[in-house]
């Protein structure tokens, strides 16, 4: 049950997180999860129960207020978005803490367990919570499917979207509300601090593997779900490990692997490509030097001493060997000579180079 819950949560967060990451609102998740705290406390103060729906609505409202205050601050004052995010995050959290500690001193004995929203306890997931997660997941999937085209357009070119006559305020509100909703739902499971990673990590990992939006969303959902499943399994097998941090670490592991091994953008393949390019450049340099030497003689394949190459850039034992393997030159003792094939290729490269320079 818990595994199912965290898997659904991971999938929903991954899906919606893709939009947050692409809209450069990565840290919005962090701010919103902190900003939800006063809403939780106030909802509890009003209803005096731990009714999770009331608390969710409270968290949703205060999360949305936080989000729009951040927007307002950035558009109406000269404070930058990082300051606005940090302010909302810490100030709302502070107010929430004040209220929570105030609640704890109240005679009402019902308050125990509110602090699960701080660090999250997947173990407290009830069947009804999982249902709620599943319903929200299906609804957000539907919304994404219905508004797919519009949302995609909004992501990549908001101005164009506006000129086409779409109501971008509505679309913006729609996607923001769902992101806030996902965050609020996740609070109970992974807690305030780690929620932002749930939103970000699967999306950031998925981004490395594709340039297509729908592939990214699907991949992010899969990564998120797997993080939930593996995280829950690992934390269940070890005593005293809380689920949230383990899920986050699993998700971070996905990110690390994606950063290194993704074929297009990964660090590993990038380095390999760089190395190959560098080698090709070196070969070309040596070859062009040889070409210039060979050009000055009537007989193209006249042997020259290897020694004279030492003075030129791009020469090394390896490149010489590589050139010989490609049958562009012949080596005889301490002498080298160009083959006709090598001469033609060098001439071709040389002319190309001249053309691009002009």
């Amino acid at each position: 049950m818990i595994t199912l819950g965290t898997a659904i949560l991971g999938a929903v967060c991954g899906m919606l997180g893709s939009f947050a990451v692409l809209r450069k609102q990565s840290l919005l998740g962090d701010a919103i999860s902190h900003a939800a705290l006063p809403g939780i406390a106030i909802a509890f103060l009003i209803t005096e129960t731990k009714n999770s729906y009331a608390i969710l609505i409270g968290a949703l409202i205060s999360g949305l207020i936080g989000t729009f205050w951040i927007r307002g601050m950035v558009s109406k004052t000269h404070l930058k978005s990082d300051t606005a995010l940090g302010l909302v995050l810490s100030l709302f959290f502070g107010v929430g803490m004040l209220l929570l500690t105030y609640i704890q001193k109240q005679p009402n004995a019902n308050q125990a367990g509110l602090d699960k929203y701080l660090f999250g306890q997947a173990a407290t997931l009830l069947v009804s919570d999982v249902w709620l997660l599943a319903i929200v997941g299906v609804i957000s999937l539907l919304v994404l499917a219905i508004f797919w085209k519009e949302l995609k357009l909004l992501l990549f070119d908001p101005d164009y979207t506006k000129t086409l006559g779409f109501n971008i305020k509505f679309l913006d509100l729609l996607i923001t509300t769902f992101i806030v909703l996902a965050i609020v739902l996740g609070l109970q499971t992974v807690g305030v601090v780690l929620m932002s990673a749930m939103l970000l990590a699967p999306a950031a990992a998925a981004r490395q593997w594709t340039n297509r939006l729908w592939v990214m969303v699907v991949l992010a959902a899969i990564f998120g779900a797997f993080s939930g499943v593996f995280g829950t399994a690992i934390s269940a097998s070890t005593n005293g490990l809380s689920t949230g941090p383990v899920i986050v670490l699993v998700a971070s592991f996905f990110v690390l692997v994606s950063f290194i091994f993704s074929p297009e953008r990964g660090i590993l393949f990038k380095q390999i490509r760089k190395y190959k390019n560098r080698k090709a450049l070196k070969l070309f340099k040596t070859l062009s030097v040889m070409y210039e030497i060979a050009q000055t003689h009537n007989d193209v394949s006249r042997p020259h001493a290897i020694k004279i190459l030492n003075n030129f850039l791009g020469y090394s034992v390896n490149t010489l060997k590589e050139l010989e393997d490609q049958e562009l030159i012949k080596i005889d003792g301490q002498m080298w000579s160009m083959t006709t094939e090598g001469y033609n290729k060098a001439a071709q490269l040389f002319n190309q180079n001249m053309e691009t320079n002009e």
Partner: protein
Amino acid sequence: MSSAQIEIQLIATIVAAACALPGVFLVLRKMALISDAISHSILPGIVVGFFITQDLASPVNILLAALTGVITVVLVEFIQKTGLVKEDTAIGLVFPAMFSVGVILIALNANDVHLDIDAVLLGELAFAPFDRILIKGTDLGPKALWVVGLILLITLILLITFYKEIKVSTFDQGLAAALGFSPVVMHYGLMSVASVTTVGAFDAVGAILVVALMIAPAATVYLLTNDLKKLLVGAVGIGVLSAISGYWVAHWLDASIAGAITTVLGGLFLLAYLFAPNKGLFSVLYRQKQQRKEVMLLTFLLHIQNHYEEEERHVNHLNEHINWQEVKAKSVLDLASKNNMIAIKNGVIELTEKGQVFTSKAIQYITDNERSEIEGMKDELFLFRG
């Protein structure tokens, strides 16, 4: 007031001052969120330090934690440099991972560690006076006071010594580099100070409220002034003010001191956000409204000047032709006639001589489209306000 109460307020004051100083530069350098990242990701450093020293406030521990903070910054920058994700995503990826490592380290060694995650995240000022420094039986006061006091002192010394350099490198990186101050040294210097301060303050107010103490005073004063010296003094002032009043709010509500301090900070920021003379929300909205009216006035005058037909210049046709609502049209009409730019004869609007001159000038300015001239125009328009 008991001596414990005075000590708590003293600690809170010093923590607030120590946080506000680096906070100003973080806000100015658009790195406010780095403080959030540092405050979370020093957790593994603190835990490892705690294993070694069995003491939360020992110098070794603080150094280790500060080192973790700097490592976080380096890691974030490394990820940014790969270009795989945007800057803020890099921050958002690094600190939860580090924090998770810390939480798991605590969980795995729960039996030997008297370290509570609650305390780490939230801190508890009320207990700070109980941890005292005793040398040969003499009570030298709370340990937190000494630690944070020392950090504040070092920050102050660094700030005063390198004030000019920090100032230049904050506002003009290129100039600073050209003058020979290494931006890298400045950057990591600031990061180290921020890390050390975070760790020192951490014990007292917890990871998340450190962020509030760093950013909120700076942001509040930044809405009121652009002068760096005033910013620094004001930020410290606001930090100290909210530390002391926050203590009494907490005392009155019997709630978390750190939470109360942050709430006061939030209240002060909200006041500045709404009412700051030039940059507050209300004055920005008022200014935008005024500017809108000025533009409308100009459009209106141009329209009148361009048309000789009576029908185009009739009062009743105004909203039809320039597409304004009636209320808007009336307020613009009032503004124009108040400034003697138009005269209305039998419902037909005519430009007065003053209006003619003004409008031609405006066209000149607009078609020339020279920035400096438009600036001058603005001043002239100010005259017509009111």
